[in-house]
């Protein structure tokens, strides 16, 4: 036993690492050595603790003191005051208007959360098998292997009500049962870690923060379906996740938790990591399987489903990272415990990645059925900078936008789907009133056009058509009938596409038309973007009453389109303006305004051009 008295847990999830967590760790080692107390303090790198906005964050036990936004300069103060004198550093704690939160458990961000998949994330050292075992790790696997038949294990999952956390929400036990029942000499299990949604990082965080949990969940699934080998398919953009999973596999093999006759049972298992090449479509299970087989990551028509003909034509289960992360807890704490959380059809908890115009961006886990209001305002801390909430995009590019009137909708598979959004993998992008919904729809459509594999024409051609129409609208060339055309195309693409990418890609457009039709209409009919985001549909204007004639705007204008004098004040010549916004940025008295709507001069110019070339659009 050592002389340790303090556990210093530094969040080393990708967010905190990019904010400088590793430098801080180094600095702690230096300072502790200088002070000669390095033998008293345990420095531990953990996975994501959640509140990424405040990174780098750390927790110091035994008191559980939580520090945010630590810089290398703060390290000496922490060591001197907290570690040596026992006085926690107040200014590094999280605080709101009224009070300071010392311990991690007091921070409001954590209070409505229930952690199952993220139970150990940010609490243990992800590279230590011992720490995972200390939290009860591999007990579920041992119990299943020594006391249950594969069928009994599937029955436990059935009772728990676990559904696929990849977004589709297919009952996990049903997938397992089909492969269990299939007759084949060889069966496979695959962990889908190809998380590609903009704004989503749940799978990455679990893989990085608690890799053994995924491995254990996967092995239980392998036993239940009769597979002896498995694959982790993780996207190449997640190098730390790949490293940690590989490390976990090595550790498990060394300790005999993987390989031949695990726990002295007849079960043998081996797993390998395959790296995804950064194609969004490879998150789709048939495309993913082809990619592992060494072929181009294109989807294939279903049926046959992977459960009958998957990897190399053998029955295969593909589950998401988060699905596996739930499995060990279900066996340790019981199916009833799991089923007691959530709603009638959506059991358990869900991990969300909160991003956008929200105060507490980061990784959260909440019981299913929690309302959007609770998720955004209580856990997320509300909209940043005193702006108003406008919309929330759920489920990434395949999901949809919901609005202020949906704030009391419970977050579960069915409720979201009924309103045109979806759970997806769990990306939640919160938007304030400065966002243009037509532009948002265009952004997601741009992503899907890029990521379409091109195998089927509805997706390849249809999405491009939709993108072109949106592009036209935001540049002020929208036509009456465009909205209906977008809807018609969107429905056709959804219905006719081969795989989930195309089937769901029109969702952001269709849901924004559904809830923000007036914005589309204003863009097309009035040539006006009320949020002043679409540059063609807004202009800059100088308020003569406020202008002090300092000439700064004219001097900073890159195209010299601002003229004037101290007496006459300054004017923007609209036809030459490139709308770079420099004038607004430099004006000392804020006399330059963004005005919604196309400037009349520009409108006239366009009308003239149209008369001269009537057949061009």
């Amino acid at each position, binding site marked *: 036993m*050592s002389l340790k*008295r303090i556990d210093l847990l530094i969040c080393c999830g990708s967010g905190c690492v990019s904010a400088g967590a590793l430098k801080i760790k180094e600095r702690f080692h230096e300072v502790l050595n200088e002070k000669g107390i390095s033998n008293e303090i*345990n420095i531990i790198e953990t996975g994501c603790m959640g509140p990424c906005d405040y990174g780098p964050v750390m927790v110091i036990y035994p008191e559980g003191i939580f520090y945010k936004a630590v810089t290398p300069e703060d390290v000496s103060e922490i060591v001197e005051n907290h570690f040596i*004198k026992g006085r926690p550093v107040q200014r590094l704690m999280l605080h709101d208007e009224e009070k300071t939160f010392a311990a991690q458990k007091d921070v409001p961000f954590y209070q409505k959360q229930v952690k199952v998949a993220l139970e150990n994330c940010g609490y243990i050292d992800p590279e230590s098998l011992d720490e995972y075992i200390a939290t009860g790790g591999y007990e579920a696997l041992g*119990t299943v292997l020594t006391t249950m038949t594969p069928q009994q294990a599937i029955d436990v999952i059935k009772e728990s009500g676990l559904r696929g956390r990849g977004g589709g929400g297919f009952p996990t036990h049903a997938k397992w049962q089909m492969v269990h029942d299939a007759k084949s000499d060889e069966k496979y299990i695959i962990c889908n870690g190809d998380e590609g949604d903009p704004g989503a990082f749940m799978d990455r965080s679990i893989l990085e923060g608690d890799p053994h949990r995924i491995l254990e969940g996967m092995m239980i699934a392998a036993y239940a379906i009769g597979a002896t080998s498995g694959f982790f398919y993780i996207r190449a953009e997640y190098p730390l996740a790949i490293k940690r999973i590989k490390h976990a596999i090595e550790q498990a093999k060394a300790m005999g938790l993987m390989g031949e006759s695990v726990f002295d049972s007849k079960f043998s298992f081996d797993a390998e990591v395959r790296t995804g090449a950064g194609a969004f479509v490879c998150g789709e299970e048939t495309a993913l399987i082809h990619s592992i087989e060494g072929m181009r990551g294109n989807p294939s028509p279903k049926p046959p489903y992977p459960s009958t003909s998957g990897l190399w034509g053998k029955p295969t289960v593909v589950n998401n990272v988060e699905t596996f992360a739930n499995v060990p807890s279900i066996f340790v704490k019981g199916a009833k415990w799991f089923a007691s959380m959530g709603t009638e059809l959506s059991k358990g908890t869900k991990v969300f990645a909160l991003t956008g115009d929200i105060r507490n961006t980061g990784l959260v886990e909440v019981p299913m059925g929690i309302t959007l209001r609770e998720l955004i305002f209580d856990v997320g801390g509300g909209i940043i900078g005193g702006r108003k909430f406008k919309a929330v995009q759920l489920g990434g590019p395949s999901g949809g936008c919901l609005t202020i009137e949906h704030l009391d909708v419970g977050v579960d598979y069915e409720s979201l789907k009924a309103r045109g959004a979806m759970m997806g993998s769990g990306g939640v992008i919160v938007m304030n009133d400065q966002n243009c919904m037509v532009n948002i729809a265009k952004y997601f459509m741009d992503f899907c056009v890029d990521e379409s594999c091109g195998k089927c024409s509805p997706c390849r051609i249809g999405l491009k058509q939709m993108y072109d129409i949106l592009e036209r609208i935001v540049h002020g060339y929208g036509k009456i009938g465009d909205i209906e055309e977008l809807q018609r195309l969107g429905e056709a693409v959804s219905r006719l596409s081969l795989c989930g990418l195309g089937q769901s890609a029109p969702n952001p457009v269709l849901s924004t038309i559904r809830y923000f039709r007036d914005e589309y209409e204003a863009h097309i009919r009035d040539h006006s973007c009320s949020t002043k985001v679409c540059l063609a549909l807004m202009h800059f204007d100088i308020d003569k009453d406020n202008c002090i004639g300092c000439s700064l705007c004219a001097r900073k204008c890159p195209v010299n389109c601002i003229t004037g004098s101290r007496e006459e004040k300054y004017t923007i010549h609209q036809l030459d303006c490139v709308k770079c916004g420099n004038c607004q940025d430099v004006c000392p008295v804020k006399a330059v305004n963004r005005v919604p709507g196309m400037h009349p001069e520009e409108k006239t110019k366009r009308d003239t051009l149209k008369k001269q070339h009537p057949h061009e659009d």
Partner: protein
Amino acid sequence: MKTLADLKKIREKAQEEMKFRGGNVRIKIVVGMGTSGIAMGAREVMKTFLEEISNRNLTDVLVTQTGEKGLSSMEPVVDVIEDGKAKITYGNMNPDKVKKVVVEHIVNGRTVSDYVVATGD
């Protein structure tokens, strides 16, 4: 790894290493580390506690620290907190006294009344 019992052995050992993170400890020793405490040698006191406890392999004891406790004339001051028992505060501590407290109080459960300056919360 052959059986669940093997796993349990590893788990128990690993849990000891992680006891600071909210694990079950029988006794918590809190050393007052305000300026006056440090001036009177609180660091030496804490170090002696850590050494004595690790030499004896006492896995269910946790040593932590706090700031100024107010009782400056009695520094270094140490609280011994045990579940379900009144808190014992020892004053005027030094490394020799620490060794005695560890043997008598922590190991054998007998309060060293000579050094006690307060009991209760």
